[in-house]
């Protein structure tokens, strides 16, 4: 089967791919484009491990069809670092040990990036609400919240 031809922008690059009508954007990213940063946790929009930013909106890529990405702008965790230079959020996740197994981390990083883009100076409560769509079974969340607070502090000063 030939599939649907889709032309989109991912992390600033123009990308074209073919996909099946029932294929999710998460499957396209991972299996067709080799962008394995977004993870499949639940596949039903509950865990946030597959979070991406689609036209400036944080979404679960498991709840988007690959065909829907035509003409739109996608940001994934792969676009956060520049070469060897990590994004401030990534650096702060490392410094605060805000991850253990790491499966949820790309989703948290993208959700935190979206949060800080819209609210550069969030309270702890706003961070916890803003990241409530991302589940983590390891950290207990406190380290993640502290990493995001520290990143926000640094990014405001930048």
């Amino acid at each position, binding site marked *: 089967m030939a599939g649907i031809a889709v032309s989109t922008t991912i992390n600033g690059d123009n990308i074209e791919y073919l996909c099946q009508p029932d294929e999710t954007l998460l499957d396209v990213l991972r299996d067709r484009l080799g962008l394995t940063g977004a993870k499949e946790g639940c596949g*039903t*929009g509950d865990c*946030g491990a597959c979070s991406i930013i689609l036209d400036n*909106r944080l*979404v679960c890529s498991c*709840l988007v*069809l690959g065909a829907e990405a035509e003409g739109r702008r996608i940001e994934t965790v792969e676009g956060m670092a520049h070469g060897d230079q990590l994004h401030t959020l990534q650096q702060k996740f490392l410094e605060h040990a805000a991850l253990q197994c790491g499966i949820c981390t790309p989703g948290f990083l993208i959700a935190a990036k*979206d949060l800080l883009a819209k609210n550069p100076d969030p309270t702890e409560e706003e961070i916890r609400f*803003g990241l*409530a769509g991302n589940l983590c079974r390891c950290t207990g969340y406190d380290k993640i919240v502290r990493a995001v607070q520290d990143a926000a502090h640094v990014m405001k000063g930048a």
Partner: protein
Amino acid sequence: MRYIRPLSIEDAVGQLAGSAGTAAILAGGSDLLVRMKGGFVEPDLIVDIKSIAGLSDIRETADGFSIGAAVPCAVLGENAALKKAWPGVVEAAKLIGSKQVQGRCTITGNLCNASPAADSVPALVAAGARAVIAGPSGKRTIAVEAVPTGPGKTSLAKGEIIEAILLDKRSPSSGDAYLRFIPRTEMDIAVVSAGVNLTIDEHGVVTAARVALGAAAPTVLLVEEAAEALIGRKLDEAALERLAKVCAGACRPIDDKRGTIEFRRKVAGVLAKRAATTAYARAGGK
């Protein structure tokens, strides 16, 4: 399976009406894709309505607001005029799912998914919202409470698409509110819920009211007797007690692990009282 992205509502209606097999309308996909993933539905045709002109817009008109079927709930929360006019509707829509889900889910989808526990629907019913439906024989406008007919079932005929939800213009002495009970802080399905919308006169007497209950029957309930308990009175203790009693009596809930019949009846009354109190304060009542 075919995926199409029509550019006009006429084309979308034509494709749906002419389709053999099962067809699904895709806006936010937060119900549809989960159902597809779970194997509960395998549509032969998916009609993505997001490229149809106007369906992704909130328009403020002389009569009120027109909310396009493809407007994500996150966008409702960012519209200051809508939030000011209909805070109860917006707070209900903002309770649906996580931030990720908010970026996709729509109130029209919430209505058409036809869950008795849908959060935005009691608020829309209380608000007297109407659905503009495009279909093979033209357009029609119906009250939102006439859309769901039972769990997962709607009154929409083959080929019909809700293109917008209409909300009336507000008088400053009106207010609405929506509350639900869930056993955790956020992101859960309502065990029971209540939406109240009312208007008061200069003396604080309620002149118009609509009360709706969610997760209390196979469809969201518009409880006319509950509105009658409020109309013609100030929102005093006696009126609130009468409201709670009527709401508890109107419930036809199920008994399940999330709540017993007795619990749902009791809490429906409590939530109606609290939502009425908030709506009254928003209307300027003291």
